[in-house]
Structure formats: structure tokens, C-alpha cells
């Protein structure tokens, strides 16, 4: 067989990407630059022509600009940022602490619950873990919580946001896999809450046996009359919960598209901030600017990845990937495990934004062709795959020594928290994640039952 180097250009593209990303130059521009550079290399080998670069622009136009699904993303980012700035998150944490003050590990449980509720609004791993660490860790340290327990709880709960809808990651996955955002959101609900309940069960059991790990709050913390507690709940617990149910519910029951629901969520967050008396022109301006920066970052990678994957395809990348995969001779299960392995490994170094935008376009032709017989109906494979991917990514962000979330946590934690303690604390949660992943893999109905019941 003849060897032509130009047949392997897409592989070199990936190799170049893998190496250059570690230069620390922004991912968005490396993606675009490599796409351009390999287009020129392809021109040298006569397998690409300059005019083909024109196609990048219509692809940006059709895929990113003229796309009402992706229009949800800036509004979800705004909603999350506004809720953080409006003090809703810290009020919520405080209220949960008061409610759970007599339960073993009450503070840790309230962190998990807050993570679950706020998960519905945030979703960039760096941002949500940083927010949770800054809000919860000082309180837990002050109460002499066991440090590994505290950090493990925060990191695991802070990363739930990518799984529990409305999650920006699921919007992007649905868009890339050409599936319905609403369905994917619904599919993620049970797996997300299952993981959250695993965490809580673990905390309850552990703190039940070893109360010294989690000293309770003093009895006089918070209001002591039933009326006072009720008022606290009404003021800080119900509003964000209501907002989340409004957003999710309107999608679930088909009242609104995810984009419209995102608009409702954004407006609701402004309203909550106003009710909390934390809305001012300065806050609104700050939240808008911050959200714009996050959006610029996210769509920057989206644009770069569009250029990269267009050139990758034009150079025959799809065929190479399919050939490679076929030459491995793996069945559908083997392929699934291999893809999961790749994504898990990438999760050590990259946030989901890069992984989803680089890996999914490359592998989406394979994903559609996976066949699991009676285990998963062919029409539902993609949804199941996306949920597995989401749980897998979350696990990867938590796994030492390279877990992405752990570094962010270390970056903002007080100096007495050592990275070894963070590693030690996360291990039980990683095990819980693996159990969850195994369960969704073995019993696809955990993800697929709810959409079937609600939407069909």
C-alpha cells in the first residue's frame, strides 16, 4: 500500500493541536490558527484550495450566528451570573444551614443542596466551583469541619451544574448532535438528582457515624421561632427554587422553547435581585459585562472550533476517524468505552467547552451508528450517549491528580487547605460518580424513562 503523507494530515492536525494547546495561548485562537495553517499545508499538497476557506464563514453564520438554540446561552450565562451577584446563592446557603442545623453533617448537606439548586443556573466549571468554594469553604472551616470532607463536598456539588439542567453544556451537546435540547434536559434530570442524592446519603451516613468530622452549627444560629424560620425560607429559599422550576417547567411541559425559558430565567434573576434589594445600575452593568466576557470566551472557542473542524473534514478527517475506528474492530460497546476513556482523559486538562466542541464534531458520525441491540433503542442512543458523556466529564473534572475542578478550588481556597486534603476528600465522591456512571450505562432507563413519559 502506498503511503501518502497528505492522507494523514488530519491526524497531524490533532497532534499539532495537542501540543500547541499547552503553550498557554488562548484555545480559541489556536483552533482557528491551526485550521488556517493546515489549510495552507493542504494547498501545498493539492488537497485543499484557498477558496474553500470561504466555507468557514457560512458555517460560522449557519452554525453559530443564525441559530436560535445557541441564543439561549448568553441568557443562561446572564441568569447564573445575576443570581451569584444578587446574593441569592449566599442567602440560600444560609437558609439551608439553619434548616439543617440539627441533622448530622448539616452544613455539608446544605452545600450539596445549594449546589443542586444553583446547578440549574451555572455551568462553566471554573466559575461554579470558584463560587461555591468562596461561599461555603470559609463557613465550613470556621465550624472546624474536616477539611477533606468540606472540599470534597464543595467540588462535587459545584460540578453538578454541567449535568443538571438547564445546563449550557447540554444546550451545546444537543446542538452539535442535532437533537432536541428539551429532550436532553429532561433526560439529565434523574441522573443529576441521583448523583446529588448519592452525595447526600454518603454525607449523612459518614457524619452519623463520625460526628466529629462535621461539628453542628450552634443552636442559636439563625431565627429560633417557627415564624422566623418560615420567613427565612420564604425570603431566601422559595424565590430561587421558584425561578428554577419556572425555567425547567416551561421547557418540560412544552410551554416555551429553551431559548424562551432562558429569557424568562434572565428576567427572573433580575427580579430576584430587585426583591433582594441588591439590584442597582452598577450591579446590572457589572453582570452584563461579566456575562459578555464569558459569552465571548465560549463563542470564541466555538468560532475557532468551526474553522478547525471544517478544515479537518475537508482534509478527509471524517474518513480517517471512521477507518481508524473500524480497523480497531471494536463493537459498539468497545467504541463507547473507548470514547468515554478519551473524554475522561481529556477532562483532566480541559473544561467541557473545549472537549465538547472539539471531540463531538469529530466523533458524531460514529455516535449515530452505534448499535446496542435491545439495550437502548436506536432513536435514543444519542441522548443516552450525551448523558453518559456529561456524567463522565463531571467525574473527570474531579479525579486526582489532574481534576480540573480541583485546581480551581485550590486557587481560591484559604492557604491552610492543602492540595493533598483536596485529593483525599474527593475520592469517595469520585467513587460515587463511577457508581452513577455504571448505573446509567447498565440501566439506560435512568436517563431515558422521563423523556419518554413526559414528552411522548
Amino acid at each position, binding site marked *: 500500500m502506498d503511503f501518502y503523507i497528505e492522507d494523514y494530515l488530519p491526524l497531524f492536525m490533532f497532534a499539532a493541536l495537542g501540543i500547541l494547546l*499547552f503553550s*498557554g*495561548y*488562548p*484555545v*480559541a*485562537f*489556536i483552533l*482557528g*490558527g*491551526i485550521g*488556517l495553517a493546515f489549510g495552507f499545508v493542504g494547498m501545498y499538497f493539492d488537497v485543499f484550495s484557498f477558496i474553500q*476557506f470561504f466555507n*468557514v*464563514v457560512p458555517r*460560522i*453564520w449557519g452554525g*453559530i*450566528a443564525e441559530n436560535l438554540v445557541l*441564543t439561549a446561552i*448568553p441568557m443562561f450565562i*446572564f441568569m447564573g451570573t445575576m443570581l*451569584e*451577584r444578587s446574593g441569592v446563592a449566599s*442567602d440560600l446557603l444560609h437558609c439551608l444551614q439553619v434548616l439543617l442545623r440539627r441533622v448530622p453533617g448539616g452544613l455539608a448537606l446544605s452545600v450539596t443542596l445549594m449546589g443542586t439548586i444553583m446547578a440549574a443556573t451555572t455551568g462553566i466549571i471554573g*466559575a461554579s466551583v*470558584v463560587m461555591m468554594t*468562596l*461561599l461555603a469553604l*470559609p*463557613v465550613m472551616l*470556621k465550624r472546624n469541619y474536616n477539611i477533606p470532607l468540606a472540599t470534597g463536598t464543595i467540588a462535587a456539588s459545584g460540578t453538578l451544574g454541567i449535568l443538571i439542567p438547564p445546563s449550557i453544556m447540554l444546550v451545546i451537546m444537543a446542538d452539535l448532535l442535532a437533537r432536541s435540547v428539551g429532550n436532553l434536559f429532561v433526560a439529565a434530570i434523574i441522573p443529576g438528582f441521583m448523583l446529588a442524592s448519592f452525595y447526600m446519603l454518603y454525607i449523612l451516613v459518614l457524619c452519623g457515624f463520625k460526628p466529629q468530622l462535621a461539628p453542628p452549627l450552634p443552636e442559636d*444560629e*439563625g431565627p429560633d421561632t417557627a415564624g422566623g424560620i418560615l420567613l*427565612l425560607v420564604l425570603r431566601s429559599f422559595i424565590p430561587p427554587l421558584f425561578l428554577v422550576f419556572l425555567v425547567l417547567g416551561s421547557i418540560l411541559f412544552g410551554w*416555551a422553547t429553551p*431559548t*424562551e425559558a*432562558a*429569557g*424568562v430565567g434572565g*428576567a427572573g434573576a*433580575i427580579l430576584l435581585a430587585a426583591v433582594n434589594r441588591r439590584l442597582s445600575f452598577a450591579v446590572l*452593568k457589572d453582570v452584563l*459585562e*461579566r*456575562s*459578555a*466576557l464569558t*459569552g*465571548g*470566551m465560549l463563542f470564541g*472557542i466555538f468560532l475557532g472550533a468551526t*474553522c478547525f473542524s471544517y478544515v479537518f473534514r475537508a482534509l478527509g478527517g471524517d474518513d480517517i476517524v471512521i477507518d481508524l475506528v473500524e480497523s480497531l474492530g471494536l463493537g459498539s460497546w468497545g467504541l463507547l468505552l473507548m470514547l468515554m476513556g478519551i473524554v475522561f482523559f481529556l477532562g483532566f*486538562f*480541559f*473544561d467541557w*467547552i473545549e472537549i465538547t466542541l472539539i471531540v463531538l464534531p469529530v466523533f458524531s458520525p460514529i455516535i449515530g451508528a452505534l448499535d446496542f441491540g435491545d439495550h437502548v433503542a436506536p432513536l435514543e442512543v444519542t441522548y443516552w450517549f450525551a448523558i453518559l458523556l456529561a456524567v463522565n466529564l463531571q467525574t473527570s473534572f474531579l479525579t486526582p491528580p489532574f481534576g480540573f475542578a480541583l485546581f480551581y478550588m485550590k*486557587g*481560591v481556597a484559604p492557604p491552610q487547605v492543602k492540595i493533598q486534603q483536596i485529593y483525599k476528600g474527593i475520592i469517595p465522591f469520585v467513587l460515587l460518580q463511577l457508581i452513577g456512571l455504571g448505573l446509567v450505562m447498565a440501566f439506560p432507563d435512568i436517563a431515558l424513562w422521563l423523556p419518554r413519559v413526559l414528552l411522548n
Partner: protein
Amino acid sequence: MELLIRVSDTLDRVIIKIGKVAAWAGLFLILVTIFDVVTRRFLVLGSTKLQEAEWHLHVVLFAFCLGYAYLKDAHVRIDLLRENLSERTQWWIEVAGCLLFLLPYCGLVIWFGIDFTQRSYATQEISASATGLTHRFLIKAVIPIGFGFLALSGITVLLRKLIELFGPEDLRKRVHDTEEAEVEHLDDIVPPELREHDGNTRDGEPK
């Protein structure tokens, strides 16, 4: 060198200003969406125009904030190895990145983006839907313009790195301080007054 600083500072101010103004498109996006949702329930208005306005605002928002995000250092970097490199090496990487990746990539999108916009203008393209918005070339032009701002932000960063690499000590320090002041830090996400919410104090009420 003085001149380079003045050029980079001016570009910087302009691009950040544009980003900050474009950021308000986010608010309009929410307002338009809400208006669409509410009016569709109660009145029978065509919402095609509103929905198209939504993604128009989305385009304005992301395209005009690309350069703004670069100057604020908000674009994701893989920091794993970078942290171990000397400052000089990092500056060199930034120079190489701007020259080899960012600027050619922007050039590509601008070049073909203008072409794309001109085709739209030449055919006086309007929405495919009869009740949609007209003048499609206006919004199509936003993409090359946005990449133009991104390229200008790349030039700003490039000039600054060159000053840091080759300039005299005092200018180097000045540039460094400007950059430091602009970068968004991670822990800015949660403002100090919201941290460690302990006890039931609220808005300065006594405990």
C-alpha cells in the same frame, strides 16, 4: 516606544468601550425574548421578527465581545505548563500566537466575511420568511467587523508584549501595570460583601 504605548492604550480603550456597550445587547436580548413570550400568549402578533431580532442581538453580543474578552484575558488558556515558564517565554509565546494564529485567522474571517456580506448586499438579501427582517447584510457585516476588533485587540497585545520584551524598564513596568489592572481575577466572581454570610444580618440590619 512612547508612541507604541499610546497606540496600544488607545486601541485598548476603544475595544473595551465597544465590548462594554455591546454587553447591553444581553439585556435587550432578554427583554425581546420576554416580550415575544408574553405577547404570543395573549395577542396574535407575528413573532418571526422578534425571534430574528433575538439572534441578531446574540450575534452582536458575541462578535463585539471577542476582542474585549482577549484584552480582559477572559479567553480560556491551558495553564498547566505555562505557569512553569518564565515571564519572558510567556511573552514570546503571546507574540508568536498573535502573529501566527490570531492575526492570520482574523484576516481569513474578515476577508471572506466581507465577501459574504457583499454577496448578501448585492442580492438585497432578506429573511427567508415573508414576515422576517430585511437588510440581512447589516447583521452579516457584524461578523467581519467583530473579527476586526479582535484583530485590533491582538495588535494591542502584540505591541504590549514587544514593549515588555524590548522596551526600557520604566515603560515595561507601566505596560505590566496596565495589564494587571485589566485582567479579571477568578475570585472577583463573588464580591466580598457576599462572602461568608454568617448569622442573619442582611443589608446592614443589626444581628
